[in-house]
């Protein structure tokens, strides 16, 4: 039997017996075969020393059982690592941050406790996936949309507390910001509710976020201060219509006014859907077409175009720009979309064009005009998450295809936040392009565009492949850590990362001698003095595992 570090086998056996009495033998896992299912399928350390492994796994089906488990773990000092659906692939999966932890698998807590159409919200448990919530709403004919990330089997709650994003309107696609109210089991087994939920028999728990007094919800995201067992979310009322359009501009220098104008229009709520910037001339697709390119192959380029691309520096050469002007291939292409009554969104599109006409040579195209609702199958003809439709199409990334004869075994997401400006796109390409070449990391072709998941910043997201070869993975792992440092030296940090990179990422957030991390540790010591909850998650360690640092 595997045991958590520092725990005597006899004590662990006793604790496991007590866990088993709470949840039953069927949901208490300790065999090697069962624990293999809790390894990170995309780990770059798979089968290598340092791979993060569970000592056991427990799968309760209620908050009360979570509380009982936490109290037992506290008595024995056993580290627990809660997961929701365990599908955080590319960011750590189901494996614990501290090897030898007992994974608390909350997948069986899969109740959709409420979906309220009048006030457009849902209250869910951790095991509820985007597919579950989508199907629940469809089956009942409710006029509500969810906002989902690419893989639909992820946890609505888990993705939010890992601060994931989606593809509809800005206020919904930031999943943590779209939440309203939490229920949390603290490391001593105590139960609390945040916001209005702190009032017994609250009637507005999912309608008003902050309640009164300090707003603490944030400390339960990307952290190890509590186990979130319920969470409310604001949902989007089903829009009447959808319009998707492109704005194309011809010159390299047009990128800066393109982004600035987009920022104004989105922040002013004139452009309401997911903005997506592509560069046809540099052959980089909008995020919304990455899956389509994986499925049907990238567009073919003329030999002259290919040759000019090879010669371009930071995506630019005057010859390439002239080629684009001659052939009508835009340097940059912004995809915008709108949700709402057709007469409203047509007016928003008109206003959008008026603002972009300030860029000389800007051209406009209407791509999709749809009366909603549409059937699920129809959404796949577009980019289905922009219609709140979950899928698993994103697994085309790295999967075998005619254009990818050598499939990967997963990927690690490198995803620094950079400013939402045209200059930052160029600078990130320069900085990370040079670093990737120096580190021999297969991240760049010619030029990379960031994603617009968040309203006010870009994510410069890059997939680092995981292979079957341990030496290659080690090379990429080291390179990834170096890229984090390089980003940090330019004032950029990751928005989220896998446990193997959490120390490197959190080290970047070091203002005033790591004042923020020192506060995290102060909180950890106060809330979880025995350090039983997710030790090491986001590099927040309990005192006895901190090694005297800071």
């Amino acid at each position, binding site marked *: 039997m595997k045991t958590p570090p520092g725990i005597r086998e006899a004590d662990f056996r006793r604790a496991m017996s007590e866990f088993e009495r709470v949840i039953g033998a069927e*949901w208490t*896992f300790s065999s090697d*075969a*069962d624990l*293999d*299912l*809790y390894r990170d*399928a*995309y780990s770059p350390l*798979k*089968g290598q020393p340092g791979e993060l492994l569970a000592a056991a796994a427990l*799968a309760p089906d209620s908050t009360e059982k979570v509380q009982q488990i936490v109290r037992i773990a506290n008595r024995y000092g056993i580290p627990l690592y809660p997961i929701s*659906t*365990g*599908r955080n*692939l590319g960011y750590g*999966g*189901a494996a614990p941050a501290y090897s030898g932890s007992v994974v608390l*698998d909350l*997948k*069986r807590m899969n109740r959709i406790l409420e979906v309220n159409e009048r006030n457009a919200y849902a209250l869910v448990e951790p*095991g509820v996936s985007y*597919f579950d919530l989508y199907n629940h709403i469809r089956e009942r004919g409710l006029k509500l949309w969810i906002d989902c990330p690419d893989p*639909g*089997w992820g946890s609505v709650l888990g993705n939010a507390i890992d601060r994931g994003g989606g593809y509809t309107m800005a206020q919904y696609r930031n999943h943590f910001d779209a939440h309203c109210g939490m229920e949390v089991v603290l490391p001593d087994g105590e139960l609390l509710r945040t916001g209005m939920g702190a009032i017994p028999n609250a009637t507005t728990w999912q309608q008003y976020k902050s309640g009164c007094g300090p707003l603490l919800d944030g400390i339960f995201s990307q952290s190890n201060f509590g186990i979130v067992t319920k969470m409310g979310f604001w949902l989007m009322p089903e829009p009447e219509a959808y319009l998707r359009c492109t704005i194309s501009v011809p010159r390299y220098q047009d990128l800066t006014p393109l982004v600035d104008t987009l920022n104004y229009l989105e922040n002013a709520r004139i452009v309401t859907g997911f903005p997506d910037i592509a560069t046809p001339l540099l052959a980089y697709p909008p995020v919304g077409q990455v*899956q389509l390119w*994986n*499925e*049907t192959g990238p567009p073919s380029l003329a030999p002259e175009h290919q040759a000019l691309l090879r010669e371009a520096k930071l995506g630019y050469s005057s010859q390439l720009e002239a080629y684009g002007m001659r052939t009508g291939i835009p340097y940059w292409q912004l995809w915008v979309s709108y949700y709402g009554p057709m007469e409203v969104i047509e007016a928003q599109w008109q206003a959008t064009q008026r603002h972009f006409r300030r860029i000389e040579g800007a051209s406009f195209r209407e791509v999709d005009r749809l009366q909603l609702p549409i059937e699920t199958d129809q959404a*796949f003809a577009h980019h289905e998450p922009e219609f709140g439709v979950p*899928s*698993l*199409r994103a*697994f*085309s*990334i*790295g*999967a*075998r*295809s*005619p254009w990818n*004869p050598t*499939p*990967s*075994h*997963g*990927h690690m997401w490198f995803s620094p936040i950079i400013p939402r400006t045209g200059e930052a796109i160029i600078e990130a390409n320069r900085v990370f392009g040079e670093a990737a070449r120096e580190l021999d990391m297969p991240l760049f072709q010619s030029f990379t565009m960031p994603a617009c998941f968040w309203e006010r910043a870009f994510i410069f997201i890059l997939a680092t492949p995981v292979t079957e070869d341990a030496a290659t993975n080690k090379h990429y792992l080291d390179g990834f850590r170096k890229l984090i440092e390089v980003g940090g030296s330019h004032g950029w940090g990751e928005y989220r990362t896998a446990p193997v990179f959490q120390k490197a990422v959190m080290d970047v957030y070091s203002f005033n001698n790591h004042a923020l991390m020192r506060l995290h540790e102060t909180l950890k010591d106060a809330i979880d003095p025995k350090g039983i909850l997710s030790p090491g998650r986001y590099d927040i360690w309990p005192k006895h595992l901190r090694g005297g640092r800071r």
Partner: protein
Amino acid sequence: MKRSFWSQAVCAALLALACAGAVRSAEPANDTGRAVYERWCSHCHDPGLHHPGTNALTVKYKGVKPGVIREWTDLTPELVRFWVRNGISVMPPFRKTEITDTQLTALAQYLSPQSVEPSR
């Protein structure tokens, strides 16, 4: 050690393939198996371009086998169990909180041609 586990598992699966004819479903209409397939497998393995599992298998088998696993004629329950619990390429394994052993047995029977149901 891991390699040895894989080799054993693959051998077991191949052995099972050789003995495939011996397994038969007792259920005339395997509703559980179908439901598990629809919930966990269909999103990647149904027919059509938007299903990365189907696309990957189409390229891998180059016409020797269909890309759609429900059309395979040599899929055994043991192979289904093996891939579900071990994963392959970008497909991760599935935990017992997602697909229980009982559900996996039903899925394995549903996907195996020797336990075929008329409307599969």
